[in-house]
């Protein structure tokens, strides 16, 4: 009987404070953190934005004086029948911007012109501070 009482002796209240060891969590978190920093790619590619017109969009009448027509070529640009290089185009656009109220640039692209010419033309127009751009496909 004594052994039974001894076995069921009420346990003494634990005096030790139970603590949760957070060191392994910190280690694990820092390991994961370093892994993410090392493997993550911070490359955010950039480009030139263009808003395409909707098929349902109507036509707009504009003053002919507002229009700047640019014909990109594989080795430059043709504007008003004259061949221009990039620097000359930038000067021309800056001049037009100062002369015309809200100029509209129309880019005439032919199918055999290289894609980089389109991007370069868009870039030049944006560099000149012009915002209204129209893209025309001359088949």
């Amino acid at each position, binding site marked *: 009987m004594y052994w039974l009482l001894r076995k069921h002796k009420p346990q003494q209240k634990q005096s030790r404070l139970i603590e949760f*060891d957070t060191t392994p*969590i910190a280690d694990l978190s820092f390991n994961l*953190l370093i892994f993410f920093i090392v493997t993550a790619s*911070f490359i955010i*590619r950039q*480009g030139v*934005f263009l808003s395409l017109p909707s098929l349902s969009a109507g036509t707009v009448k504009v003053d002919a004086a507002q229009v700047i027509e640019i014909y990109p070529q594989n080795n430059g640009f043709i504007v008003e029948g004259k061949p221009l290089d990039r620097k000359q185009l930038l000067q021309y656009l800056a001049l037009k911007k100062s002369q015309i109220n809200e100029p509209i640039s129309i880019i005439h692209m032919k199918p*055999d012109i290289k*894609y980089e010419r389109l*991007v370069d033309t868009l870039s030049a127009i944006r560099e000149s501070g012009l915002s209204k751009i129209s893209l025309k496909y001359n088949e």
Partner: protein
Amino acid sequence: MLTSPFLKKLRSFSLGASAADMAMLLLVFFMATTSTEPPKGVTVELPQAVTQGAEQDSIYISISKEGALYFDGKESSIDDIKDQLAIRQNEKDRIVSITADKDLQYAVVANVMNVLRQYDFLNVVFISQPREEQ
């Protein structure tokens, strides 16, 4: 050695909990803010431009020099792209990133842009590399 009764009462403490909190916080921050590499599909030589916008969360269309099309990294025909755009009609506000080779003929890009217009995906960004001033 803690000898005096007063010093014995003092309990040592560790910075483990706050270190774990800080690490977790940084971890969540990095996981939330880092962007993953977009699907390329094909390696192309990008044209140069004065870039304006950063593309994020786009629909990716890559076009090789030969005119092969890749939609979100997978080689696709123009009809496949039409199908994909038809499926994603609820994502029309997303930007479509066109990554095309600089020597590609414009006719191919024009065809893709025409399809984008048909399906009302009107926000396009032509991915380019920053222009080197000459």
